[in-house]
């Protein structure tokens, strides 16, 4: 098991290096940041001076070496636009994102697992049909549209919930609701179908043959097996939280990572975009690793093969 974890960490480091190379060059494909900084009457000399200041006068190869050197020492540079350390900007945005993302993740997963399992256990009941209807509705309606409609109805028309800001718990209702709406349908369907497969299995039949009460059949014999497939998806959703919810944060004017990423991309603020992308990559790789370890915990066969 330890060996398996070490191998997976090494694989993750190699993947991370690949991601850094790609991020560096892809970001530079978006164009020259000085184009956006200069004013109509800036002189060529002034523009050159800015380029030298930002380190953009050097060749790509040199820039890349500097980038690798700085990042490996944990120096993420300064924003081109705000001239502040990137780490400081992320330090402001990340907590806001987590304040939105973590409650949404918890609510989303609890609802998805509860409704998915209930739907499967009471197959074709009212609960199940509601679950199926909600899942189809949720996947068919674009989340941003639902969010805008919710703002129009609940904050503009009826003025129940505020549409922007983050001061009171009430401010959280619409953005958290939007994020849950994004996560819930797919996850709920996945849990339901995974649970249905397991409930149909021979070992669940055998558990009933033994005379076990239905609650033990479902919570002990079925659930643990049904968890295996949805675990990966849950891990990926969790990793995605750090990147911020680009759509939700922009609709609700939420000063988090998603908005920072979007505005930095538009202003060609290379250091910010690079750092955010790499941070997301680290989270995804880390979540993958955690999911693999969780797999080994749930499924003994994986545990034995890996040790």
């Amino acid at each position, binding site marked *: 098991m330890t060996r398996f974890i070490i191998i997976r960490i090494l694989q993750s480091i190699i993947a991370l290096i690949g991601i850094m190379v790609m991020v560096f060059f892809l970001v530079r494909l978006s164009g020259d940041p000085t184009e956006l900084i200069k004013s109509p009457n800036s002189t060529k000399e002034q523009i050159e001076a800015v380029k030298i200041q930002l380190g953009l006068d050097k060749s790509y190869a040199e820039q890349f070496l500097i980038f690798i050197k700085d990042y490996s020492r944990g120096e993420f540079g300064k924003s081109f636009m705000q001239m502040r350390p990137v780490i400081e900007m992320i330090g402001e945005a990340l907590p806001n994102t987590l304040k939105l993302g973590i409650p949404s993740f918890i609510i989303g997963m609890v609802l998805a697992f509860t409704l998915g399992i209930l739907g499967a256990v009471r197959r074709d009941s009212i609960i199940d049909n509601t679950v199926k209807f909600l899942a189809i509705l949720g996947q068919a309606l674009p989340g941003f549209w639902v969010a805008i409609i919710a703002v129009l109805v609940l904050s503009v028309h009826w003025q129940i919930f505020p549409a922007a800001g983050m001061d009171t718990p009430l401010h959280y209702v619409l953005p958290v609701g939007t994020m849950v709406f994004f996560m819930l349908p797919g996850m709920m369907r996945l849990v339901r179908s995974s649970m249905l497969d397991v409930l149909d299995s021979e070992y669940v039949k055998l558990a009933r*043959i*033994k005379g076990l009460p239905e609650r033990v059949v479902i919570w002990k014999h079925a659930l643990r097996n049904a968890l295996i497939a949805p675990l990966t998806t849950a891990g990926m959703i969790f990793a995605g939280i750090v990147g911020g919810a680009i759509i939700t944060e922009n609709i609700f004017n939420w000063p988090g990572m998603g908005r920072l990423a979007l505005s930095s991309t538009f202003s060609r603020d290379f250091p910010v975009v690079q750092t955010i992308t790499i941070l997301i990559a680290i989270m995804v790789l880390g979540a993958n690793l955690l999911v693999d370890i969780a797999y080994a915990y749930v499924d003994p066969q994986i545990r034995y093969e890996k040790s």
Partner: protein
Amino acid sequence: MSNVVLQVEDLHTSFFTRMGEVKAVDGVSFLIREGETFGIVGESGCGKSVTGLSIMRLLPEPGGQIVGGKIILEGKNLLELSKKAMRAYRGKIVSMILQDPMSSLNPVYQVGDQIAESVRLHQGLPENMVEPEVISALRLLRIPAPEVRIKEYPFQLSGGMRQRVVGSIAMSCKPRLLIADEPTTALDSTIQAQYIALFEDIQAKTNVAIMFITHDFGVISRICDRVGVMYAGKIVETAPTREIFKAPKHPYTVALIHSVPRLDQKDERLFSIEGQPPSLMNLPPGCRFCPRCTVALDVCKEQQPPEVKISDNHSVSCWRVK
């Protein structure tokens, strides 16, 4: 005669689907005595497994339903029991072995835990007595090194070994009736022979009544004392095994026995019965085997044949048998 353990009387089980009622079991009666092995043989879809699941009262839901008859186990009609009382019977007084050993054990729990669960549930033993009981259940099925096996997971065992574990679970609480639904079909033939010998031995030790469901007459000849031949939801012939091989009376039984491959005959082509069993949603008015029968009479098309007792323990439903 020893005591009757199970008596099934005029059992009717149907599946209610969108297309209509499927009469999977349509008036089946038989009995099994202590220490006896009763075989139910027939093609797939004839209702033999559904008969087994009806006795367990574990029909697939929604849709499966027992619509009539009696299932009397040790003097109690199981169809009159509450759900909770029925659960207390399952695994304790009546148990079942399923066909596929690869999928009938839970992959995420240790073998010992899966047996211990039954022991705890039905025997009310103090916790320090559970493990010895589990080990003795594994010993009964002659599983080598049971002390080691209890800590293993199903994927660490071979198919034959897994089926023995399933047998241990079934026998762990000394049931009076064991329903074995094609327990040897998924095993290869040497393992199959061992498994059958094992059950003869277990039966001699425990006097359990066994209902053995199979499509394989070869297996029947090895283990069963008496046989019921099932066709399209009905038992068409019941007789002692020896007699059914020597003097089968129903044309379907004759054809089935004739289609068992034999090493001592040099037939180039294996005999097979022409046609398909009838749809259980749209049964013919007369004898159900009539459309495939080579010796059918006019009356066979119109009326169902009555059951005729040709000796004490041999009965047939065929117009040709008087």
